[in-house]
């Protein structure tokens, strides 16, 4: 394998990892701060993608679509928090799983009702279409490069928000001791709604960006949700840093596994069989990674409650 190919694959891994981070960040915040398991997080990802597709089709502008995706997912998140999730904080995890699973069904059928069962396709905006040549002669899709940039920018912004602002202090305090922060006079209900809407907005943005290079369809959120859970388990529940490291690990393991494992098996097997076995093993790679991390650090890499 050439150096150029290797670097290109690392970029691919980085890109898919950063999109996973956008999903996992919201999930881990909600779990860390509110102690809530939110299976409907994937639905917010789908809401973002559909909002982007709908607005982009109506206005012809991808950028308006992207803005709409963030707004729509945040609004959907806030509404869901106020209407349903708020009642679940004191209940046990099984109730939360049941209720948020019901939300998945409602969101999926609702979207099917509005948009039908056919996948929608977004076009990459004119300014970002095609590919560019990076230093070292690497040709890479401009839009994927932009996704990497956007993902990094959101990661930095999120660290600043959590680390440097008043809201961030409240969020961290809420994670450490919920009763105490409420006793100190912080409006905990408003804070919860805010955190939930923030997480939803990030998921919606990821949905719009990924939907643009793939497809927008009902049920697109659930496979990503599973990966996002793997990410926060690896990174440690409640930790933004853990979510970032976990997401990059999962993204890189998945991409590199798909590329490298078949060629590893080719060393001692016939080509056809090697590609088949390698591909099958590659789809398990991230779960093997998760198991290994849990053996060494049962609380995840940066688990707050390890």
């Amino acid at each position, binding site marked *: *394998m*050439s150096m*150029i*190919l290797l670097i*290109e*694959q690392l970029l*691919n891994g980085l*890109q*898919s990892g950063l999109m996973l981070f956008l999903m996992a960040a919201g999930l881990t915040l909600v779990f860390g701060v509110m102690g809530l398991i939110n299976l409907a997080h994937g639905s917010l990802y789908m809401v973002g993608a559909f909002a982007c597709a709908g607005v982009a089709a109506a206005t012809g502008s991808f950028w308006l679509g992207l803005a709409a995706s963030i707004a729509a997912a945040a609004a959907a998140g806030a509404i869901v928090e106020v209407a349903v999730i708020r009642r679940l904080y004191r209940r046990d995890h099984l109730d939360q799983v049941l209720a948020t699973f019901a939300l998945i069904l409602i969101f999926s059928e609702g979207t099917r009702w509005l948009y039908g*069962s*056919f*996948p929608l*396709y977004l*076009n*990459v905006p004119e300014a970002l*279409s*095609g*590919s560019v040549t990076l230093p070292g002669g690497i*040709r890479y*899709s*401009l*839009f*994927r490069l932009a996704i990497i940039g956007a993902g990094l920018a959101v990661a930095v912004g999120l660290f600043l928000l959590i680390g440097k602002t008043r809201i961030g202090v409240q969020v961290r305090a809420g994670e450490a001791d919920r009763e105490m922060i409420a006793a100190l006079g912080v409006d905990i209900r408003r804070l919860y709604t805010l955190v939930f809407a923030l997480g939803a907005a990030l998921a919606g943005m990821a949905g719009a960006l*990924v939907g643009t*290079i*793939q*497809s927008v*369809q009902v049920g*697109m959120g659930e*496979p990503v949700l599973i990966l996002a859970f793997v990410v926060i388990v690896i990174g440690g529940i409640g930790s933004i840093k853990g979510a970032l490291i976990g997401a990059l690990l999962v993204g890189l393991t998945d*991409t590199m596994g*798909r*590329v490298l494992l*078949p060629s590893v098996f080719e060393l001692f097997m016939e*080509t*056809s069989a090697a*590609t*088949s076995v*390698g*591909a*099958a093993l*590659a*789809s398990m790679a991230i779960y093997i990674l998760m198991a290994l991390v849990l053996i060494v650090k049962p609380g995840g890499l940066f688990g707050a409650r390890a």
Partner: protein
Amino acid sequence: MTGPKTGIHRETRMTRFLTTTALALSMMGTAAMAEPVKVGMITTLSGGGASLGIDTRDGFMLAVEEAGNPELEVVIEDDQRKPEVAVQLSDELIQSEEVDILTGIVWSNLAMAVVPGAVRQGKFYLSTNAAPSQLAGKGCHENYFSVSYQNDNLHEAAGQYATDEGYGSMFIMAPNYPAGQDSLSGFKRFYEGEVASEVYTQLGQTDYAAEIAQIRDSDADALFFFLPGGMGISFMKQWAEAGIDMPVVGPAFSFSQDILPAIGEAAVGVKNTAQWSKDIDNEANAAFVAAFEEKYDRLPSLYAAQGYDTARLILSAMEKAEVSDADAFREAIRAAEFDSLRGKFSFGPNQHPVQDIYVREVISEDGTLTNKIAATAMTDRGDAYAEECKM
């Protein structure tokens, strides 16, 4: 409460009696006419892949309506692309609806779940699309006909085309599941050059960045891929973004009329293999394309053409034999005396088509993406499994 209930009961019994009498009387009158044929269509009308089933149904029903034969009745059911639903529907159609013929299944895994049971119960099954190798070889059955092709055919034709074009090395790719593995082996059966790299993707995969990087790095002369449904759309869009200048060859599934608008301009110039194209030059085909466009306001796809041909085949058999005489009816189907949209059409020994397979090129025609025939890849092609079929 009992009073009115029995009343209703008695009333229904009365109605039923009267209806039966009326039916019996009417049958006496029409005894000389052909007996009705009931067709049960199981196809995918909702969820992912619904566009394939909808086109199959619309093509089939167009032929039924054109024929206007009151003796042909069609019951249509949606399998939601789920094998267990398809099995349940086939039981219902066979037992409650008492259909004579089943048809319509799009996906091979659903066909494998339904066909063997249906033909064992003495029903005919005419495939509008799915034709897995198991049913063409050892598992063939006298009541099972494929009107479309044998699954490997389009991949074989792509291999033959790559050989004809003189591509010295090919990058080949398919999802890691039985039809994907069959696809690559079908391609290799007729490809004489060197396989630069063989890649299996995950079924349902949506991101192909890693594979596209490998293709770019491979120095292959051309790319062959089989990624049915949404997978192919995602791949082609990402392929276009990557800006790789390499010829692309594939079976028609990823470049069918129902999918082309979603891929967009990225598809233009791609070569794809199929046994049907809207520009095959014969009267029946021209009439079909015009009528389909007139009725449904869109261009017909491969699946619509296959549905149409299947219905016409059934209608042609009804002209010659009663469905109650299974042997005569089977002979009538096997004779395949109908004006196929493909021009020439006949069944091989395992009741799969012997036909020409074309190479089509995606073109933009007055702003609409569609296919036109660029070459003939194979002439009078049967399939690789016919010898294994002992009927």
